[in-house]
């Protein structure tokens, strides 16, 4: 039985965000496909295949869109507001994290009109520092968790890692999936783990941190796997699906992000649940960022064009966007000394 085909028929139901009780009800209506390992495998393997040449050609074709003048100004500000400004180094210190928070709050000291970034993304032990530095602002604190980046730890450790970050004040959790389990075909185990982490995102007051699920697409390797992982993550309750950790050779690419946007679009058509997408790693220039925004615009459309539903996991991207922004407002290129290095 080709479940995917049946479910991929567009249904007319009101859109609900991935977080909240309504989404949980919609996902419950799909419970039959996650009822057993066998059912989940049949569902994921029944999804339409991906032709790599065609996918990459489509992504490249959208990359030739010419974004100029007013469109460029709009895209630059939107991109800045979508950045999860990231530092994930062994050498991170409270000082470094505070500096990055200052940058997120005030990206361009010469122009207070510059939008703020969406979030700061740090390791769990830096969450308290970041939360303190960002207190009272709308910039979110995102924390990687679940034994990032490899995810090679026992489930209780991963859940403790998550709960610790949430308790320290994280608004968002970026978890990694167990690629080993996925690649060996233990889909239900990956599914259960995501669900458990989603549970661990709950706070005592009943609210919850938003969950981003990182697939590490470079390790999943095939586009068919990326589509299956996307559906798996969304069925398990992901608020965002995210390409990569930034720690492996191949991170976000236009093609894998396009594929994940298609999955999000199809999931929305099937369940009415809206899920966000976050490409991360390797996006460094304004030109790159605009290509990704074009992918969003022409695949899922306007409803995804805000930092509620699309993010860039990046660090050096911000300064390139700021330089391009200055160029648009002054007509001249400045240079790396006219943006702050943190």
């Amino acid at each position, binding site marked *: 039985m*080709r479940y995917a*085909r049946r479910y*991929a*028929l*567009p249904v007319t139901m009101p859109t609900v965000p991935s977080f909240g009780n309504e989404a949980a009800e919609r996902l419950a209506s799909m419970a039959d496909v996650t009822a057993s390992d066998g059912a989940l495998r049949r569902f994921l393997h029944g999804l*339409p*295949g*991906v*032709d790599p*040449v*065609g*996918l990459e*050609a*489509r992504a490249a074709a959208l990359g*030739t*869109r*010419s*974004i*100029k*003048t*007013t*469109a*460029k100004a*709009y*895209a630059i500000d*939107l991109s800045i507001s979508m950045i999860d400004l990231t530092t994930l180094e062994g050498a991170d210190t409270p000082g470094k994290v505070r500096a990055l928070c200052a940058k997120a709050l005030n990206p361009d000291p010469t122009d207070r009109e510059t939008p703020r970034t969406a979030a700061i993304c740090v390791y769990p032990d830096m969450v308290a520092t970041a939360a303190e530095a960002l207190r009272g602002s709308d910039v979110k604190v995102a924390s990687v968790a679940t034994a990032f980046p490899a995810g090679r730890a026992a489930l209780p450790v991963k859940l403790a890692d998550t709960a610790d970050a949430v308790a320290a004040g994280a608004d968002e959790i970026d978890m990694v999936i167990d690629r080993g389990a996925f690649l060996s075909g233990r889909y239900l185990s990956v599914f259960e783990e995501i669900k458990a982490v989603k549970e661990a995102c709950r706070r005592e007051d009943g609210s919850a941190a938003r969950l981003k699920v990182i697939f590490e697409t470079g390790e999943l390797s095939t586009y068919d796997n990326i589509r299956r992982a996307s559906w798996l993550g969304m069925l398990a309750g992901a608020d965002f699906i995210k390409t990569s950790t930034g720690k492996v050779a191949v991170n976000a690419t236009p093609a894998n992000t396009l594929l994940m946007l*298609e999955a999000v679009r199809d999931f929305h058509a099937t369940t009415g649940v809206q899920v966000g997408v976050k490409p991360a790693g390797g996006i460094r220039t304004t030109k790159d960022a605009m290509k990704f*925004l*074009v992918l969003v*615009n*022409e695949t899922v459309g*306007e409803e995804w*064009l805000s930092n509620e539903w699309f993010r860039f996991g990046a660090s050096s991207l911000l300064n390139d966007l700021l330089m391009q922004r200055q160029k648009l407002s002054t007509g001249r290129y400045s240079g790396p000394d006219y943006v702050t290095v943190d």
Partner: protein
Amino acid sequence: MAFEYAPAPESRAVVDIAPSYGLFIDGEFREASDGKVFKTVSPSTEEVLSEVAQASAEDVDAAVKAARKAFEKWSALPGAERAKYLFRIARIIQERSRELAVLETLDNGKPIKETRDADLPLVAAHFFYYAGWADKLDHAGFGADPRPLGVAGQVIPWNFPLLMLAWKIAPALAAGNTVVLKPAETTPLSALFFADICRQAGLPKGVVNILTGDGSTGAALVGHDGIDKVAFTGSTGVGKQIARTLAGTDKKLTLELGGKGANIVFDDAPIDQAVEGIVNGIFFNQGQVCCAGSRLLVQESIQDELLDALKRRMSTLRVGDPLDKNTDVGAINSAEQLARITALADSGEAEGAERWAPACELPGAGYWFAPTLFTNVTQAHRIAREEIFGPVLSVLTFRTPGEAVAKANNSQYGLSAGIWTEKGSRMLAVAGKLRAGVVWANTFNKFDPTSPFGGYKESGFGREGGRHGLEAYLAGAAEPSNERSEREGERDR
């Protein structure tokens, strides 16, 4: 706030179009013998771009004589020397590609995205490819010492003006022939710019002659006694006339005519890529492509899903100013063609098919037709049988692979077909059963100079491109060329 792309027009300043152009005969531009001219307009604005000469029978004669005279030396050049000219032409085309892309977009109406990313790179690639063959003809499998045929009369269509010129001229010259080429009446400019490139490359006079004009010029050219070979790309109707004209003569003929390509989508297809392939198959160049995938054959079990995805995708097509870099679908080439498309689309509706087009605003001036699809089409409908040559897709369904093959082959044409499936064995089995010159699998409208292209049935005969493309311009050792028989004739005297 929505993400609206600001206008991003390619600059017209890179191309300098003269107010008038003459005929390119024997290395010089000259007026028509009777002084007649006609105008060429930009289909997207109806603006007059230039005035070009209307070649008379007398001009045809002069051009054929110039080509005949040039043939002696050109064919005697070592292949490596001919290759140098072809390489030089290819390089100049690359260097002037932006200018030529803008020119082609102005004269033809197709989007700059296509002329820039498809037409021009393919034109240069074609010259590079055949330049490489020029000194290897002895080893091409056509006998030990294959000879050129002589003078080739070539008539090309308006849908890919410069690319069709390249398909015709590159192999002809590589093989040692000289040519007289007539571009289409509505798109003469890029061929005239090519004439300038020939001069820039120092190509000997008379090797390439360009005659602009209407159908009467073409008829005079293919009917001329002084040519040895006719190569035609265009409508099946005109192709039949040419075949009649040539019947009983010793002229060689290749015809690349119409098509009604079937794009077959099986239920195990990669759906998102299939949708892209369908769009590319029928809306590339406004569907004015002989090998367009104008019939969509979709397996009934995924019909709804696929059509929903296709309609959603069609709604994102950007129709408008062809010079804007973000335009996906440009203008129809002429008022005449627009009328033909409109009439056939209307017949589809009249015969009971269901018409759908995305909401899209068409410019006021120029010739425009919105991307359109018809569902509930049957094999009996005119829109399922006749070539529309426009952005109109007819959707039919099938239940089994056998039915798909039967329906795909049930056409007077046989130029192209597409197969969409993730199953390799099905792909190969179906491809082997399709009577079409080109079968694409999980892609569509992909061209490459190394790949032969041509049709079955009323889509014509002969192949262009690849090693096969040389055959149309060479006489093997077993088959004496006209040149050789003339020499033998002299000996007999």
